[in-house]
């Protein structure tokens, strides 16, 4: 359904020199560095899969998505989506895929949500009946009805993302590309979006590629994960496979009343204490948080405890 073969995108970064004269000279010098944003990535995604495409910032996630959707042209390699070459038949493909960029809305900023939908309706040549069905259906799933007449710029981030998701579905595409759709959202909004995406995948059999920084997104949604770092694919498999590779490291920061006496403990990878403050890195798959809390309170009397969720980028960068 979606196939990438030896996909590579190389960006030329021109070296600019200091000062006005230098920058003018560098126009002609042609000195540049080549950087592979995406480097020989191959994968094949089947119908109905929900794929998490993850990696640290600058790993080449967005670049890949943009090549899949025809926005960027690969330097070399081949890609087909739904049997269509995205670069040659971009418009034809656009009619059959839905794209959401979490960082940037695709809606008309100053217009009410409904107006944006109407424009898209014309753009994708959607019939009236299908459009009415769309409004009803996505009001059920995403509650878009309550802010249909509000200008986009006045929406909350969560509402805007729901509107953006609905807009990406207006032409009922079988394939969805989602680039960080949960970025910056609070927990409630994230939940709504996740439930929605699950519904899209399970009930409507849509094929989804999702990039995210949120480990929970991946755990709850993705049946398969592709991990990339510095443009290269480093892991492709189920969530289980990812877990065995990187574990589930979490961080606990504890401040004690008096100087603590730390003990070695199964599951704790690292415990660093400076004064009364301890930073404990542990593996959630080996020791559960309540057990750990009980153990560390034996070290002294905790005044303050903070938990940090695993940061996927950091983990990946540390491991590879």
């Amino acid at each position, binding site marked *: 359904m979606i196939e990438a073969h030896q996909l590579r995108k190389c*960006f030329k970064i021109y070296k600019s020199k200091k000062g006005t004269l230098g920058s003018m000279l560098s126009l002609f010098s042609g000195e540049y560095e080549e950087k592979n944003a995406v480097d020989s990535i191959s994968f094949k995604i089947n119908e109905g899969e929900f794929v998490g495409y993850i990696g640290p*910032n*600058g790993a080449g996630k*967005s*670049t890949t998505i*943009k090549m899949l*959707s*025809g*926005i*960027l*042209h690969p330097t070399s390699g081949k890609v087909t989506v739904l049997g269509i070459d995205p*670069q040659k038949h*971009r*418009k*034809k493909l*656009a*009619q059959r895929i839905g*794209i959401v*960029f979490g*960082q*940037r809305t*695709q809606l*008309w*900023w*100053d*217009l009410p949500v409904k*107006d944006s939908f*109407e*424009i898209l309706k*014309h*753009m*994708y040549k959607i019939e009236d009946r299908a459009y009415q069905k769309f409004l009803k259906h996505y009001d059920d799933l995403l509650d878009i009805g309550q802010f249909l007449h509000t*200008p986009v710029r006045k929406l909350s981030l969560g509402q805007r993302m729901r509107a953006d998701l609905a807009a990406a579905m207006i032409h009922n595409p079988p394939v969805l590309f989602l*680039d*960080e759709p949960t970025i910056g959202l609070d927990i409630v909004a994230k939940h709504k979006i996740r439930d929605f995406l699950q519904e899209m995948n399970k009930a409507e059999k849509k094929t989804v590629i999702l990039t995210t920084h949120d480990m929970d997104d991946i755990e709850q949604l993705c049946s398969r994960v592709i991990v990339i770092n510095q443009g290269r694919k480093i892991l492709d498999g189920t969530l289980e496979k990812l877990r065995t590779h990187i574990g589930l490291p979490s961080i606990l920061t504890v401040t004690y009343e008096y100087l603590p006496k730390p003990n070695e403990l199964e599951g704790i990878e690292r415990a660093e204490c400076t004064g009364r403050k301890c930073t404990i890195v542990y593996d959630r798959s080996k020791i559960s948080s309540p057990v750990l809390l009980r153990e560390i309170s034996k070290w002294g009397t905790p005044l303050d405890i903070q938990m940090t969720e695993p940061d996927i980028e950091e983990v990946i960068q540390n491991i590879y």
Partner: protein
Amino acid sequence: MKLYIKLVSASIRSRMQYKMNFIFSMVSYGVIMMIDFVLLAAILNRFGQIKGWNIYEVGILYAISSISLSLYRTLAPELHEFEKYIIEGEFDSLLIRPVSPLVLLLSKNLDLSRIGGILQGILILCLSLYGLSQEQELIYIAAYLPVILVCGCAISYSLALFTATLAFWTQRIKDFQTFTLYAPFNAANYPMNIYPGWLKMIFFTVIPVAFINYVPMLYLLQKGGSLYFLLLPIFVAALFFYVSLKFWNYGIQFYHSTGT
């Protein structure tokens, strides 16, 4: 076309969300235009005659060049500001639609405050035609003017498209626009025979602003042109539009986008 109207009306509606800003830009642009006009009148008054072109004839050249450019600035402000799409990576959002990005760019915005430029041009045109009406028959000029203006607008659009395409490599195009749009159109305000040979060469070939007004007017004002001079602007506009479009489609694959 229906989509275009839909999109344009949407852009005007979003413009109207900021009414004060809109009114202010319209008024301020009008004032600038008036000052420009007064300056021109002073210059024309002083010259009297340039290389065989009298004040009214130069007025016609000036008006056609000015209206052509303003028409383009009114219709395609987003193409003119194309570098912002490249620098901010906003071009992405045009490429995910099943419609040509050029149509989307055209329909994204109308710069109504540029209508002041068109009105100013029409005013000068009327004054000049009135001045000429003492000496010669104007019916042919008046009848052919719409064609000339459409070609002029097409040529300026093509030049702008060509310039915008450069942004795929250079990111910024503001400095190029001085060379490919502002300067040539300023030059086209006056008859081409006042320029040295190499400059004329440029205006007749790579930046074909001579065809916007000078060439057809040579014939229409009986300054030694042939009948086919009237067809040249149509031919040149079509050719240039075609070439620019090809260049644009070629350049699009070099689009870099930006990181998130």
